[in-house]
């Protein structure tokens, strides 16, 4: 399939095929692929580029999954560096941000699969955070964690989600998707939930009225065809439920884990992945250039390669930094806005659900 033929389909609003996706991943000219993705990005969002004020909390790094791709986890609570955050400690992080005058609108929570914690720890954590800031949105627990809770606590996926929702859960993050292929999952994360199970968690969450994000970890052992298939599986679920808000491609970082002989995907590979995602995922509203994982320069450039979201202020990101990420631990809102403006884009501060959180000072109306 030629790029011109693909461009014609994109222009007509026709969904792209697996063969189209593969052709885009293999096309020798990154600039042309980027330009095509940018057309779609600008058709959907103009120059608007979203970010939010968020706080990352990792309740524990103790994890029974022992994935080869992970630099964050500890197998046992007794291992060096293992931690479980007390609920007061977690709430303290939010209180500190609020006390400093930071208008945080979202708490993002992901952690290890700890088999020694009661379910009440997680509902208690949500309730305590909401008690401190009732208006804050809590985006918590990847589908892998939800599926683990279902197995560990003997509840259906729906029951797990309903109970967490009652305690304050608003949406799900997109982590743990890795590559939705049995072959790849067996190679890099054999103890995590299966691809179909990951999708089923999101399907159930969407049915309960929750929104979620979706991701793809690329650069481990997957083929380009498996990347394209992954994107189409996400598109199929989105066609069914409409519950995904954003797609976030995550380049693999190889340091401090059992896949350390792999290289970090290049900036060109990351930009191409953003672009191909924008073109294949025509029904997912937002594509995120997650600055923590891409690096600031690549993420900024990604705003011209299909991405319309830069993620948020973050603070205390641990998972990527333990895998060798060189990015800062946090960015101030003004710094994010400056980076977005320097890219010739318009910064828009959003809430979790892409409502306008507040206008950016001095910014034109959008």
């Amino acid at each position: 399939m030629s790029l011109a033929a693909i461009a014609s389909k994109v222009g007509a609003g026709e969904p792209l095929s697996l063969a189209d996706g593969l052709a885009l991943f293999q096309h020798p000219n990154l600039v042309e692929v980027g330009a095509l993705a940018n057309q779609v990005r600008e058709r959907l969002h103009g120059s608007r580029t979203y970010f939010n004020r968020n706080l990352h909390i990792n309740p524990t790094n103790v994890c029974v999954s022992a994935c080869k791709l992970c630099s964050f986890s500890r197998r046992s609570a007794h291992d060096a560096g293992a931690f479980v955050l007390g609920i007061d400690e977690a709430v303290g992080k939010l209180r500190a941000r609020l006390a400093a005058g930071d208008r945080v609108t979202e708490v993002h929570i992901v952690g290890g699969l700890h088999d020694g914690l009661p379910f009440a720890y997680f509902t208690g954590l949500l309730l305590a955070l909401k008690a401190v800031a009732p208006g804050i949105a809590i985006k918590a627990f990847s589908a892998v964690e939800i599926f683990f809770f279902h197995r560990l606590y003997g509840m259906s996926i729906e029951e797990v989600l309903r109970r967490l929702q009652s305690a304050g859960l608003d949406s799900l993050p997109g982590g743990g998707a890795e590559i939705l292929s049995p072959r790849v999952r067996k190679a890099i994360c054999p103890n995590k939930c299966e691809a179909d199970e990951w999708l089923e968690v999101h399907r159930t969450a969407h049915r309960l009225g929750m929104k979620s994000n979706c991701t793809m970890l690329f650069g481990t052992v997957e083929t380009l065809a498996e990347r394209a298939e992954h994107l189409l599986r996400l598109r199929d679920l989105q066609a069914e439920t409409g519950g995904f808000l954003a797609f976030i491609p995550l380049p693999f970082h190889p340091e401090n884990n059992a896949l350390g002989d792999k290289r970090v995907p290049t900036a060109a590979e990351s930009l191409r992945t953003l672009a191909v995602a924008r073109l294949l995922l025509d029904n997912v509203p937002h594509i995120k250039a997650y600055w923590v994982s891409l690096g600031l320069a690549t993420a900024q450039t990604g705003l011209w390669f299909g991405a319309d979201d830069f993620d948020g202020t973050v603070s205390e990101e641990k998972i990527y930094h333990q895998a060798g990420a060189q990015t800062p631990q946090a960015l101030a809102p003004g710094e994010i806005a400056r980076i977005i403006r320097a890219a010739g884009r318009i910064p828009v501060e959003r809430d979790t659900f892409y409502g306008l959180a507040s206008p950016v000072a001095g910014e034109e109306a959008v």
Partner: protein
Amino acid sequence: MSPTANADIFGPGREALALARAAFGGRGFFVSARALPADFVRAPYTFGEPEAARRDRLAALTVVNHPIVPTPVGEPQGLDTIAFFAAGRSAFPAAHIVVDLELLGHKLGQLCLSFGADAIVGMIVDQRALRLGERAGSNELTRDEAAQLLRASGFEPCEGLPEGRGP
């Protein structure tokens, strides 16, 4: 307002990539050097400076037979950097436009290979240590990695610059 604000990066990018690939018959080059070779010429650029100032500075570089190394003053910005590389290629279609890996890093550096650069210079070694601890920020590349960066950007990788170096 930055020089890239509201700019279409793809028009200049398309032209720069085509010129870079044509300049040396599709070949791209990697040069192993701890310090920049003496005959390479730095072309400084500053984030946020007016586009006209950049054009004038490039036009003043009359040393077209020497490899030109776009050099950020301060922290390099992504779009700003690729815009300057594209402008450099446009100004000097037949010269070597070189990425300094030590200044730009290998990720942003490779991106410049899609926006006008045809060569990279830096510590290119047979084997490198993992980027851990004090070496976390190291920009060393192995020869295979350097060749792969060039190949992934559509160049046929070659070690060292060809004799004569310029057009």
